[in-house]
């Protein structure tokens, strides 16, 4: 359907319209009530969606907050390129919290398994403190994980960034209470109620550009933990792993060392929508090695101040 000329007010609004309106309302509330919001921006589809919604929320004005990238140093080059072009196109200020800097000067040590996702927490918290950000937008969705399914839209964090799932603030109607004390900050999740399929249907409807990784392309890959992993400097194949060329795409885009691709011929947005609608695996189940560590991997990382 063409969204541009469809104004479905006579028949009630559809799911995507309802989700869009809810998200824009949340983004505007946070901007109105906080001093220094920032958006966590990875170049992944969810943070691109939040940015797109923010641009709509303040149109024809500019997006009134900077973006923050927690850079693990293990990036897909296409994603960094996309990040920089997006920031330039919208005239945004980009803040970067670099995990590599922390490794270089010894504030953090490389983990034995080589993954850097768990190392993001400290640079993130330091960047929040340095930027004096009292609200941090994230693109997390409740359908991603069973711990995220429990989180509020405005989630209060203490000075260590910790989430206390047993003691969350009630969240009533659409009246958000962002009050916090010195040292605390709030994580705001405007697309909490979107599913992966909603995101893709909306990307199709709005014609939103994404990094090319999300669409089928040929790549040198090898099989590990039931996922296709890209051959790269930071994720080389072990001697016993067979490298082959396959047509793959990414369902999530994160740290190269722990994000897997799925075999797919979905080369266009419409193909991806069709593929996601019939997928038998969840997004993270299919692509994230770091969430397979334990039953409650996400909950534990969130308690420690992760997104």
């Amino acid at each position, binding site marked *: 359907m063409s969204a541009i000329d469809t104004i479905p007010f006579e028949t009630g609004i559809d799911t995507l319209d309802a989700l869009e309106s809810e998200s824009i309302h949340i983004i*505007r509330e946070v901007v109105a009530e906080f001093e220094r919001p920032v958006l966590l921006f990875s170049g992944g589809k969810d943070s691109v969606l939040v940015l797109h919604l923010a641009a709509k929320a303040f*149109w*024809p004005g500019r997006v009134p907050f900077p973006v923050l990238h927690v850079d693990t140093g293990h990036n897909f080059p296409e994603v960094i390129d996309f990040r920089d072009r997006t920031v330039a196109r919208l005239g945004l200020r980009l803040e970067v919290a670099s995990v590599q800097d922390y490794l270089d000067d010894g504030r953090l040590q490389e983990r034995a398994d080589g993954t850097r996702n768990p190392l993001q927490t400290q640079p993130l918290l330091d960047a929040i403190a340095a930027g004096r950000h009292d609200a941090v937008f994230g693109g997390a969705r409740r359908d991603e994980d069973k711990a995220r399914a429990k989180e509020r839209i405005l989630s209060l964090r203490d000075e260590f960034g910790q989430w206390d*799932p047993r003691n969350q603030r009630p*969240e009533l109607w659409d009246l958000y209470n962002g009050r916090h004390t010195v040292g605390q900050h709030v994580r705001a999740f405007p697309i909490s109620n979107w599913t992966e399929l*909603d995101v893709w249907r909306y990307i199709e409807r709005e014609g939103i550009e994404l990094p090319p990784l999300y669409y089928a392309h040929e790549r040198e890959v090898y099989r590990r933990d039931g996922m296709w992993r890209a051959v790269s400097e930071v994720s080389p194949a072990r001697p016993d792993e067979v490298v082959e060329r396959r047509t793959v795409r990414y369902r999530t885009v994160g740290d190269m060392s722990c994000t897997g691709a799925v075999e797919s011929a979905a080369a266009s947005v419409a193909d991806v929508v069709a593929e996601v609608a019939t997928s038998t695996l969840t997004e993270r189940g299919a692509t994230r090695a770091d969430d397979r560590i334990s039953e409650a991997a996400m909950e534990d990382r969130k308690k420690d101040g992760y997104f």
Partner: protein
Amino acid sequence: MGDALFRFATAGSVDDGKSTLVGRLLHDSKAILADQLESVARTSAERGFGGEPGAIDFALLTDGLRAEREQGITIDVAYRYFSTGRRSFILADCPGHVQYTRNMVTGATTADAVVVLVDARNGVLEQTRRHLAVVALLRVPHVIIAVNKIDLLGYSEAAYTAVADEVTTLVGELGLPEAHVVPVSALAGDNIVDRSANTPWYRGPALLELLETLPSLDELETELEALRMPVQLVIRPQGAVAHGVDDPDRFRDYRAFAGRIASGTVRVGDRVQVFPGGATTVVTGIDAGPRELDAASAPQSVSLRLADQLDAARGAVIAAAGALPEPRRELDAALFWLGGRALRPGARVLVKSGTTTVQALVPEIVGRRDLDSLELEPAEHLEINDIGQVRVRLSAELPVEEYVAHRRAGAFLVIDPQSGATLAAGIVTAPVTPTTGRAGNTSTTRTTTDTEGVAA
């Protein structure tokens, strides 16, 4: 035009089967993907669920926190999503334990329908009453009673009818709209997605059929109500227009009021009235991002351009001309006290209504609703999980309305000015005197004379 969104929440006493029902609903409507099912099956097997191999504890699909899995209870709301082709659903699985009632309130405030589970063996328990009282207070549009665990009673019609009658009576006493009652086994899947052969005596719809057909809140309300939009912020780029806007000069004097429509429909050319001040003007444009609309309705987020340069900012309310309520400084209100410290007369709090937060004083606690008798009894203070009736004095006028007439204009938060904690869910009511009113009942006594001192 895609499918519409419908939000529902579960409620009912601890262990009555809410999470199991939700898991069953997700599973039987094919919303569970292979890796999730595998993970839940593995955990069920490790814990020896059901005593037989292959039995799946469907509650694990929503009880996602470590502590929940260890204790076998729900602590906080889990939000899940599924779609049947007819509708997309947002489902809030709420906890039953009394300690976490505040989380159930969280789940219920946004619900179009609440599914209240009752264990057929136990009937109505204290938490069932409390949750139903909350549902009545919040005026959730639809109440569905799922009489659960009928597999344990041999699918007996008599046992079901006894419980159904008990709950229906309570629903009536609470002044709730008529409830839909469904006999179910969440564990076995009877009458959840499809009608069950085990209950030939039941002629009504399965649970999912009800959820697919009941009208949502916004469907019910847009038809009825006049336009109302609280202003979140004013968009005024003043030259700092977004990159990529073709013709920046066009927007040099752009000024629009951004907000989410709380009720009604707005069209270009409509006459509107603006709080504060009450000045009347005309809508000259409706923008949704770069797209111009002829009309928009609740709950859309838009930016409204007005003919006159009004001095309005965040906290302003734009309403259909003639529909702006008389601003008030004194409110009668019902509160659900969520915790933190107790409420005592004379307390200073913050009240957040729409997009405004003002200081407020609670000079008087009119009473506390007794859960057994449902009567309003005199009370010195309100404590956690109490439903109370109070008077509130605001430091500034607000254009609120009674919640029964307009949800979004009558709902407010009570916030602790020191800690910032949310202390209560508040709704604006008509004046109420003790022993006459009933929770959520619209037939409360309206007093035309001074009601000062009624708590004495």
